[in-house]
């Protein structure tokens, strides 16, 4: 069920981000969500895209260092308290969230969130049992 995230290692140097955005743009791939983790020396650029495999190939051919990470995607009502609800569910079951970020596009009444946890399967099972709607690969394209 988990969705694929592209993780890209970015050295803290001029022009590195341009290489990434250009190669994704040139491959005609849409970015649905993104987040950046940074340290003094480097950053990790994380992307949810419409075609992860092709994005990985395009990035690698322009010299980027890329890996694919499985993450949990959830779709929640775009209203106050929605995010609090899923965070509470995970807290109740002692599931740590390593990081989370939201999708760029919001369609209608739904908002989408990416969650990175240690154990995807357990998290997905618990969220489903608690009535949270999970995102699948095919949902990413149609968002």
């Amino acid at each position, binding site marked *: 069920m988990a969705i694929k995230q592209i*993780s890209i290692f970015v050295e803290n140097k001029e022009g590195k981000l341009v290489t990434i955005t250009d190669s994704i743009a040139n491959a005609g791939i849409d970015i649905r969500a993104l987040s950046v983790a940074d340290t003094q020396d*480097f950053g990790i650029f994380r992307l949810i895209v419409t075609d992860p495999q092709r994005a990985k190939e395009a990035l690698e051919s322009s010299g980027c260092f890329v*890996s694919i990470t499985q993450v949990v995607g959830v779709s929640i009502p775009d209203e106050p308290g929605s995010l609090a609800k899923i965070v509470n569910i995970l807290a109740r079951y002692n599931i740590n969230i390593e990081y989370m970020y939201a999708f760029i596009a919001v369609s209608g009444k739904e908002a989408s969130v990416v969650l*990175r946890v240690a154990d995807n399967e357990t998290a997905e099972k618990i969220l489903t049992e608690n009535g949270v709607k999970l995102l699948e690969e095919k949902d990413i394209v149609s968002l």
Partner: protein
Amino acid sequence: MAKNYFQPEQETMPLEELRKLQSEKLVRQVKHVYENVKYYRDLMDAKGVKPEDIKGIEDLHKLPFLKKDDLREAYPYGLLGTDLKDCVRIQSTSGTTGKRVVAFYTQKDIDMWEDCCARALVAVGATSEDVCQVCYGYGLFTGGAGLHGGSHKVGSLTLPMSSGNTDRQIQFMMDLNSTILCCTPSYAAYIGETLREKGYKPEDNKLKAGIFGAEPWTEEMRRDIEKNLGIKAYDIYGLTEISGPGVAFECEEQRGMHINEDHFIAEIINPETGEVLPIGEKGELVFTSLDKEAFPLLRYRTRDICVLSREKCSCGRTFVRMTKPLGRSDDMMIIRGVNVFPSQIESVLLNCGYAPNYQIIVDRVNNTDTFDINVEMKEEDFSDIPTGITNREKELQSAMKAMLGINPKIHLVAPKSITRSEGKAVRVIDKRKRLGINI
């Protein structure tokens, strides 16, 4: 006594006698070189030194040095000390940093070299009962030929495997009960690793000792090899210019390598000034070959930095001991007052499983040296979470600190992102030079 000596008379010769022997041989050798090697005669004449000025080892410092560049310039026959018809063998250096160096040997030279290797083998316990597996490369490289010849002299059953084809190495090792292994330390580590992967335990093989040299290795690597192979691992030192492996070797004490002083005089000099340093000080190792006929080098600067010790060794040998080379004199950096060699950094990287592809950046900020090392991360260490990488950086930093005595800042960078260059790579960027600092 004499359980672990090949030539006890020489190996345990009282120091006074040894000095007398060296002096006699030196006087004879200087005369031989002056008469037969025009290249060195010119150097002596330029310095105003005549053979009769050299009356014993106390006069050694009067002789001119030979450097690697001299060997290149004199290539191929310029330093030959005998007629070619008296030579029976050529060996050669790898030639990674420039033109190859070829060394010539008479049969007597070969015998002396093989005796040195036999001493190293006997010191680790080799006898005629042993099976000695030689997996140094055979050919121009001196590793294979040297230990092969030494093993013959000892009378061990010699397996001339050469390097590579690890499956076959392991098959012979198991089927023919090899007891002594001779190869580079990295290959020994690889064989140990492969044995473990194949499901062999250390006690499944009959090996008891190994002689590993020809490249830098650390104590950690020694312990790994010993554990995986179930043996005691010994170091050996040598260089083609002087003969090959066996110029110095470790005894069971493993506190430095005994230099075969009846054949070679060792000096330690300040690499900057050429001044001879007292024993115990760190400096560049210089060798004078006392018995070589065909390629008789006097005061050859090895560029290896090490320390000598005359402290009495419990093995009974009187030969001076040298530490493992700490680096090359031409690569030495002084950072925060500490001598640092790229080779040390390289061996830490290899021991920690990193590619030996790195870049050192030294600068001076607020009157303090900064010391940064860029290292290519392992593919499997990259994940979407930064702490995965920063933890690896901290581990590598502690390993570096343990080896160097000072703390570098480690930066893991993407695999294959450090430029690979043909030939000698640019490993060090010393930005202090722009400040005009004398380093």
